[in-house]
C-alpha cells in the first residue's frame, strides 16, 4: 500500500488570521439570527401558516445531501476498492460530518422551541420518520467521528469497517430525509415514492460536486499538490449521477401529470409558478443538468480542471433548485379543500401564498455557511486532514506495491507535521 503523509496547515500567516476573523464574523450572523428568531417568534421570518417549512429547511436538505457526497468519496476506498481515494478519505470524512452538523444546527435553530432539543430523544413516536431520524442522524455523526478517528490513527481494519458502516448509515440518513417529505399525502407535490430515491441520488451528485470544489481550493490555497486524475475520476462519477437525478426528477413530475389534481399542481411548477417555474426550467434543468452534462461530455472541456469545477458549481446550484422545488411549491400551492369551489378565508385558504426569506433567515443561512467554513479552517490547522501531496495511485499499482512493502508498512509511523512546510494558506 502506498504511504501518504498528512500534515496540519501552519496557519500563522496574516491571510489565515484575516480569513478566520472574517468567517467568525459571518458565523456570528447565524448565532444572532437564531437567538433573535427564538426570542421574537416565527413572525420575523417570511413564513406564513401555509409555508411553515421555509428557506432553512431547503438548506437543511441541501447540507444533508452534501454530506453524502463527501462520504461517498471517503467510502470509495473502503467499499468500492478505489484505494487511490484513501489519500482524500480523511478530509472527505471530516466534511461529511461537518455538513451533517451544519444541517442539524440549521434544523434545530429553525424550531420554534430549540430549547427543547433533547425532547425527541426520550419522547419517541415510532410512527414518525422525523422521530426516528433523530437517532439516525446522531448515529451517523457518531459513526462518522469514530471513522475519522480511525483514519487519523491509521487503524486500517477499524477504519474500513467503520467506513462501510458509515456509508450504510448514510443510506438510512438520506432515504430517511427523503421520506420525511415523500410520505405527506395531504399535499399533491409531496407525496411520492420516488422522493427518497431522488433524494439519495441528488445527494450523491451534489455532494461529489461540492467535494471537488472544496478539495481543489483547499489544496490550492495551502500550496499543496493534488493529482488532476482525482477530478477526472470524480467528474465521471458525477456525470452518471447527474443523468440519474435528471431522470428521476423528470419521471416524478411526469407521473403527477396523469392525475387531475397533479396536473393543477404541475402546471404551477412548470408553467405559471413565476419563481418556481424559473427554478424548475432554468436553475434545475439548464444550470443543474444540461450545462454540466455538456461540459462533461465535450472532449474539449471534460478533462480541463477549470471546466470540471464550473460544471460542479453549476450542479450544486441546480441541486439547490431541486431542493427548493422539493420543499416550497408543495406548500405555496393552495390545498384543494373543496374541489370545484374557489375558497377564500382570512386564513389564506385557496390562495397560492408568496414566500420569500426575510433578513433573519438570510442571516441564518449566510451565517451557517460561514460557520462551517470557519470550523473547516480551524480543523485543517488542528487535525492532520489534508495530505501533503495527493498522488493518484491506481488500485492495481497500489496492490502490487502493497505486496512488496507489506512488512515495512506495518512499522510505518505517520510523520505528522512533517513534509514540505505548506507556506501560505487562505480560505
Amino acid at each position, binding site marked *: 500500500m502506498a504511504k501518504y503523509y498528512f500534515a496540519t496547515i501552519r496557519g500563522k500567516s496574516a491571510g489565515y488570521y484575516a480569513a478566520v476573523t472574517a468567517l467568525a464574523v459571518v458565523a456570528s450572523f447565524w448565532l444572532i439570527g437564531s437567538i433573535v428568531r427564538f426570542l421574537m*417568534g*416565527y*413572525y420575523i421570518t417570511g*413564513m*406564513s*401558516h*401555509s409555508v*411553515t417549512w421555509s428557506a432553512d429547511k431547503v438548506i437543511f436538505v441541501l447540507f444533508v445531501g452534501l454530506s453524502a457526497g463527501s462520504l461517498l468519496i471517503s467510502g470509495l476506498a*473502503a*467499499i*468500492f*476498492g478505489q484505494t487511490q481515494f484513501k489519500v482524500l478519505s480523511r478530509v472527505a470524512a471530516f466534511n461529511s460530518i461537518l455538513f451533517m452538523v451544519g444541517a442539524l444546527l440549521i434544523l434545530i435553530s429553525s*424550531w*420554534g*422551541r*430549540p430549547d*427543547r432539543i433533547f*425532547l*425527541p430523544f426520550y*419522547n*419517541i*413516536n*415510532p*410512527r*414518525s*420518520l*422525523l*422521530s*426516528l431520524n*433523530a437517532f439516525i442522524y446522531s448515529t451517523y455523526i457518531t459513526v462518522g467521528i469514530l471513522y475519522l478517528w480511525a483514519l487519523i490513527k491509521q487503524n486500517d481494519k477499524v477504519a474500513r469497517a467503520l467506513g*462501510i458502516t458509515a*456509508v*450504510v*448509515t448514510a*443510506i*438510512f440518513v438520506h*432515504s*430517511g430525509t427523503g*421520506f420525511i417529505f415523500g*410520505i*405527506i*399525502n*395531504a*399535499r399533491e407535490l*409531496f407525496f411520492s415514492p420516488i422522493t427518497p430515491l431522488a433524494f439519495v441520488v441528488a445527494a450523491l451528485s451534489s455532494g461529489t460536486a461540492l467535494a471537488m470544489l472544496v478539495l481543489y481550493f483547499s489544496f490550492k490555497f495551502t500550496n499543496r499538490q493534488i493529482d488532476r486524475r482525482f477530478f477526472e475520476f470524480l467528474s465521471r462519477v458525477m456525470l452518471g449521477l447527474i443523468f440519474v437525478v435528471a431522470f428521476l426528477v423528470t419521471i416524478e413530475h411526469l407521473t403527477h401529470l396523469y392525475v387531475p389534481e397533479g396536473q393543477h399542481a404541475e402546471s404551477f411548477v412548470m408553467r405559471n409558478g413565476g419563481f418556481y417555474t424559473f427554478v424548475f426550467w432554468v436553475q434545475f434543468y439548464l444550470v443543474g443538468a444540461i450545462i454540466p452534462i455538456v461540459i462533461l461530455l465535450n472532449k474539449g472541456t471534460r478533462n480541463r480542471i477549470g471546466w470540471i469545477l464550473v460544471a460542479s458549481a453549476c450542479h450544486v446550484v441546480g441541486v439547490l433548485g431541486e431542493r427548493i422545488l422539493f420543499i416550497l411549491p408543495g406548500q405555496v400551492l393552495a*390545498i*384543494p*379543500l*373543496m374541489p370545484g*369551489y*374557489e*375558497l*377564500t*378565508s*382570512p*386564513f*389564506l*385558504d385557496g390562495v397560492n*401564498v408568496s414566500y420569500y426569506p426575510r433578513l433573519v433567515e438570510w442571516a441564518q443561512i449566510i451565517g451557517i455557511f460561514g460557520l462551517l467554513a470557519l470550523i473547516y479552517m480551524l480543523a485543517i490547522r488542528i487535525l492532520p486532514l489534508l495530505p501533503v501531496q495527493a498522488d493518484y495511485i491506481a*488500485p492495481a499499482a497500489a496492490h502490487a506495491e502493497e505486496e512488496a512493502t507489506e512488512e515495512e508498512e506495518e512499522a510505518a509511523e505517520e510523520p505528522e507535521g512533517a513534509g514540505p512546510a505548506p507556506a501560505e494558506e487562505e480560505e
Partner: protein
Amino acid sequence: MGKNEMDRRTFLKMGGLLATGAVVAPGSQLLIARAAGSSGAEGDKQYAMVIDLDRCNGDCDNECEAACREENNVPIYGDERYDAYWLRMAEAKQHLPGAPDRRIPLLCMHCEDPPCVHVCVTKASFVRKEDGIVLIDEHLCIGCRYCVIACPYRARSMIFRKWEDAKNEQMGFSVNPDQPELMIGVASKCHFCTHLIEKGEDPACVQKCPNDAFVFGLASDPDSEVAQMIATGRTEVLRPVLEVEPNVHYMGL
C-alpha cells in the same frame, strides 16, 4: 480484489436490509394501527360535530369565529400572514354560473387516523383515548411544524408571536381569564373546547351560532342528534379520499 468484491456484496446486502428496515419500521406501526380498526378512541366514546351548511347562510357576523377566539384566547395580530385561527369561516364560490356562494366553517376535523399525530416527532400531538379528541401537549411540542405540513385541512396554527403582542382586545375580542395564553413557537388548534365539554357544555362555536348550524355530541351514542344526523347518510366529510376518518361532518356540502 477478491476481498473487495465480497465486501461490496456484504455492503449491498446490509444496505438493502437497513433501507428496508427504515421503510418498514414506521410503516408497520401504521399497519398495526389499521389492523386494530383505527387509531382513534379506544373507549366507547367518540365526539363528533355536524355542520349544517344550509343553516350556515351568512345571516350572522361570524359569531363562531369570534366565539372560538374569545373562548380560547386564540391570538390575532392584525397580519393575515400569521393570525392564528382555530376556526375560520371560508367563502366558497362555485364555478357554475349563477350558482349561489357558499360558506363553510373550517376547523380541526379530529380525524380518527390523523396524519398530524402520525408524524409528530415527540408525541405532543395525540388522540385522547377516552373520547377521540385530537389534542396537543404544548409542553412537548418542539415547533418543528411537521404536523402543519401533514394536516390535510390546514387546521393547525403555529403561534408566531408572544401573547403580549396579540391585539385581541384592540380588535374587539374579549379575553377569557380562565383559559391559558398560548405558548409561543408551538402548534395549536381546535380542541372541541375540551374544558367546556368536561363541564357538560357544548363548544363555544356551537353555543354562539345564531342559526344553530353546529350540532355537537357523541357519535358513539346512537341516540344522540349527531349520530342520527350522520346515520341519515346525508352528511359528508372533506377530502374523503384521504380516508383519515374525520369527525367533523358537513350536511349539504
